[in-house]
């Protein structure tokens, strides 16, 4: 019993759909309260607007021993973040329970409660207190924290004058010195430049080597297999696999749960879609027609979908939603093919491809959600989250936007633009002939 760090038993969390709707008015609640006694009198057979619920987490059970480093993987919306939120006590479970043996620290987001008006020093104390550190503990580690963050010179400057990189470094330095017995890490943390990500991962493996327990939620399969010996796979709120990281990651990538460059749904009954249209294939392709997980930043890349229209006479537009690793929507591409815009489609198979030009995307992972919709009125027939994913790589040979620059380039896209330069005249030495 004592060698356990985390014990999770039948943990479940139910959310009401639309609960976060900000337009909920007090009036509705009043009406609900007033009509509640009468509702029982009405027959409940039809038309009853019942609340809809989703289970973000359902009957999840597992145990973690002290000193284990466990990865949690799964697609977006699989329940990973909900699990972390419950383990950090931010929200309560609906059913089941979790027992944590030891002090819990979480890196769900660095810089929580950072106030731009306060100085770096003040923010260290504020942030430390929010994360649960005592004042004498912060006093003791203060120099270490500042040294780790590398901003000694600016520690008494208000944080609003920091670059975003500096603020994140300072925030991470505070969080990294929390020294919990159980550390919960969300990948969101890994926002930032490559050097910073490396620092995060380095700190995590350090924590693990010290024999502390780490729970690491990530999309990055390389990082997961490198850091964790054991991996838990969640899907639709359920625990579907729990075992050695290599095996779980491999089976995840092989199954249709993993997001890869090509996916297919051969079974018409379970393929994404409805009675109007079904999605059968989606893939990332190069100009030469090959499926490819990695794409040179200079080359065009095509997103190709194959779908079958089952009901004739409906106007359909495939549309792709591109998200980067941080979950930011980079852009949305809707079908622009003039032949099928506003044109009802006959039944049959279609292949649609959207071409993203070379020298447009930024480096990194892009995750594509595939949807097929009718625009007027809006009906979404197919919406497959994380349908395919690909990696944009920059070659460093010099003819991409990067040029000879080897450092980190921020930005959601990295288009190659047309530049013009006009040499007007030489003010320094007007006697020289201008070219």
């Amino acid at each position: 019993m004592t060698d356990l760090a985390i014990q999770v038993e039948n943990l479940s969390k139910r959310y009401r759909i639309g609960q976060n709707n900000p337009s909920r008015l007090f009036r509705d609640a009043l009406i609900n309260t007033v009509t509640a006694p009468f509702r029982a009198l009405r027959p409940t057979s039809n038309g009853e607007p019942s609340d809809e619920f989703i289970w973000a987490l359902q009957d999840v059970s597992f145990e973690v021993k002290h000193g284990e480093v466990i990865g949690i993987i799964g697609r977006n919306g699989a329940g990973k973040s909900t699990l972390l939120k419950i383990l950090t006590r931010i929200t309560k479970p609906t059913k089941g329970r979790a027992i944590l043996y030891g002090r819990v620290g979480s890196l769900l987001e660095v810089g929580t409660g950072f106030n731009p008006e306060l100085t770096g020093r003040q923010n260290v104390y504020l942030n430390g207190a929010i994360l649960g550190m005592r004042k004498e503990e912060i006093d003791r580690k203060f120099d270490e924290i500042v040294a780790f963050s590398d901003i000694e010179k600016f520690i008494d400057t208000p944080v609003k004058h920091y670059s975003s990189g500096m603020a994140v470094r300072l925030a991470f330095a505070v969080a990294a010195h929390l020294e919990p017995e159980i550390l919960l890490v969300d990948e969101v943390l890994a926002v930032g430049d490559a050097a910073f990500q490396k620092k995060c991962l380095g700190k995590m493996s350090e924590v693990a080597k010290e024999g502390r327990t780490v729970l690491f939620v990530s999309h990055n399969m390389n990082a997961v297999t490198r850091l964790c010996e054991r991996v838990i796979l969640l899907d639709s709120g359920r625990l579907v696999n729990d075992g050695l990281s290599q095996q779980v990651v491999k089976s995840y990538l092989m199954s249709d749960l993993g997001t890869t460059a090509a996916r297919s749904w051969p079974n018409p009954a379970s393929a994404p879609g409805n009675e109007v249209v079904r999605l059968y294939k989606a893939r990332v392709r190069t100009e030469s027609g090959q499926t490819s997980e990695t794409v040179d930043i200079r080359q065009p890349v095509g997103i190709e979908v194959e779908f079958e229209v089952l009901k004739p006479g409906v106007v359909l537009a495939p549309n792709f939603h591109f998200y980067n690793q941080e979950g930011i929507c980079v852009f949305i591409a809707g079908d622009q093919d003039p032949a099928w815009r506003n044109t009802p489609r006959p039944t049959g198979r279609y292949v649609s491809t959207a071409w993203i030009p070379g020298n447009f995307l930024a480096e990194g992972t892009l995750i594509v959600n595939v949807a097929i919709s009718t625009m007027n009125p809006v009906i979404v027939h197919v919406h497959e989250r994380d349908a395919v994913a690909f990696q944009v790589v920059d070659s460093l040979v010099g003819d991409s936007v990067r040029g000879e620059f080897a450092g980190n380039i921020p930005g959601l896209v990295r288009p190659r633009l047309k530049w013009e330069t006009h040499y007007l005249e030489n003010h320094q030495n007007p006697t020289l002939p201008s070219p």
Partner: protein
Amino acid sequence: MVIEPPKGWVLIDLHELWQYRELLFVLTWRNITTRYVMTVLGPLWGVIQPLITMVVYSIFFGGLLRLPSDNLPYPVFTFCALLPWQLFSRSLSIVTNSLVVNQAMMKKVYFPRLVNPIASVLTELVDFAIAFVILLGLMLYYGIYPKWTILAVPLFTLLSVATAFAIGLWLAPIQASYRDIGLALTYGIQFLQYATPVVYSAGTIIPERWRALYSLNPLVGAIEGFRWALLGAAPPLLTPILVSTFLVLLFLVGGLFFFRRMEENIVDVI
């Protein structure tokens, strides 16, 4: 540590709150520091607001309308009431908004949610303390010297804060899902000010037979208490102030239960 589904109606975990006392003080300190950062006058703003209100009231209610002021100089008469009144009204609105304002933090880290309203009230008490010094100066200017009764001031301050806190505990979780509360509150506070002897003296304005009912408003007790303790005015009626204090305590305990019950899933709703 065991994490379990909400258990229903339980009292606030005072032991846990005590463990988070440092966060409480750090948040209070943050509120105070950030409120007046980037201002030239700084904490003086805590004083300027009641001072200006006092001047306006003195001109209109004291000077032009000649409202009764128990034979006390009108400025000091109304300023003495403005302190507990503004402590109440500002505490109430800041407590009501305390969950909404700190939602970003609550969604990322766990800490007892009650820390939010408590830190808000502590922040207001600091402003109150500064304004109180001004009140003492004003009294000396008019030649009013405090007697031993000044020792009762903390009690009436507590009554004013407790009233705001008790109501705020009910409103804050509701405000988290229905922002209507905050909008309605502005008017509620305005109306309540008329039912509170801030600009007039209750003893001469309110008909005798309504006096007891009127005095059930805990702020009537708090303000009359202030005037009695500091300016030597007639003391508040004993029975109504005891009854209203009891009602405030009931509200407070109920509010603690309600807040505790609502905080469980506040993050999912906010």
